[in-house]
């Protein structure tokens, strides 16, 4: 299973998220890294990164359960904008809601492990910075052997 694609699909199904980052046709959700061509005008956006995927073992051999660490970077031009997007990702509008903070879908389940604020230099020659809210998720899903 392409777990990164599964997260992106799940994000596209969250109406509070798509209201901020664009509709289901072309939402600003990127795998691995934000594209260099991404302009400030096009923020906020989300970057999905899967750090590790560990297949769980049993005495009988390799099981199908896989646990993955995923990181979502919610980037905006303001701190409030970044946090607003992170809240949408976590709760999809209402707490506890149907967001990824405690998600149970047909392909995977996941929960929020930690949340950190960060700033990243815009790297365009100016002194501007992007505001990031970084969400660390733990995911569980079945990977057929």
């Amino acid at each position: 299973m392409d777990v990164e694609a599964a997260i992106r699909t799940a994000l596209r199904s969250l109406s509070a998220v798509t209201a901020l980052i664009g509709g289901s046709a072309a939402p600003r959700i990127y795998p691995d890294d934000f594209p260099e061509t991404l302009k400030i005008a096009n923020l906020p956006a989300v970057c999905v990164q899967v750090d590790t995927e560990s297949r769980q073992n049993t005495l009988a051999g390799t099981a199908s359960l896989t646990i993955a660490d995923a990181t979502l970077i919610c980037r905006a031009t303001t701190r409030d904008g970044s946090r607003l997007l992170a809240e949408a990702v976590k709760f999809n509008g209402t707490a506890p809601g149907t967001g990824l903070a405690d998600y149970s879908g047909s392909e995977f389940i996941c929960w929020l492990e930690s949340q950190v604020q960060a700033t990243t230099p815009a790297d365009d020659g100016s002194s501007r910075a992007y505001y990031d809210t970084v969400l660390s998720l733990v995911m569980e899903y079945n990977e057929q052997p």
Partner: protein
Amino acid sequence: MSSAVSGLADLNRNLSHIQEVASKRAASAAIGAALAPIVKSMKSSINGSSASAAAKKAARQAVGKRFLRGGTNKLGKVTALVAKVGFAVGMSGKRIAKQSAKKAERARPKGVGITASNIHWLVLGTGDRVLTGKGRAQFERSMKDVPVGVLSGHRGKGAGHPTGRVEPLFAGLAPQALAAGAAEAINAAAAKARSVILAEVRKKYVKF
């Protein structure tokens, strides 16, 4: 009227088992359990840094832990207890080599990608680097199947061409993460020690 106290021998045996065996098991399990919150704290510190998203991902992937219980094996060899958290820790050379080869393949035609084998470039930074003759030769060998036109915009023409420097992005992060995660690590260690001692007591408990 008189009463006799029995079971003292069993009680003594249980207490000395806890003192001699269970305490060691509990201590080593507790130290092992304390590592996970520090790993988590390191990853959080990486996320909180101002590095690029790609650098953060590479750094998070390179964080690991290693725990060796230590003791004396059947041949009498004494090994020390090792509890370590950090960049490029707890990964076998084979796994690192596999990861590096995969990343280098993805990074072609430019760069080698960042894995546990070269994460120190990002953590500590590098000096000014230049293309060496050997590096150039290796690069040309790896590019032998790539059409010449694709290479025309590539850096440098030969040995000595500057390839820039890497500024330290995560310097001092490990001690900072250790301080941040210390309370959680101690709590995890205490909880683990308690559960191991309880398990040991239940195992050896003799009904009087």
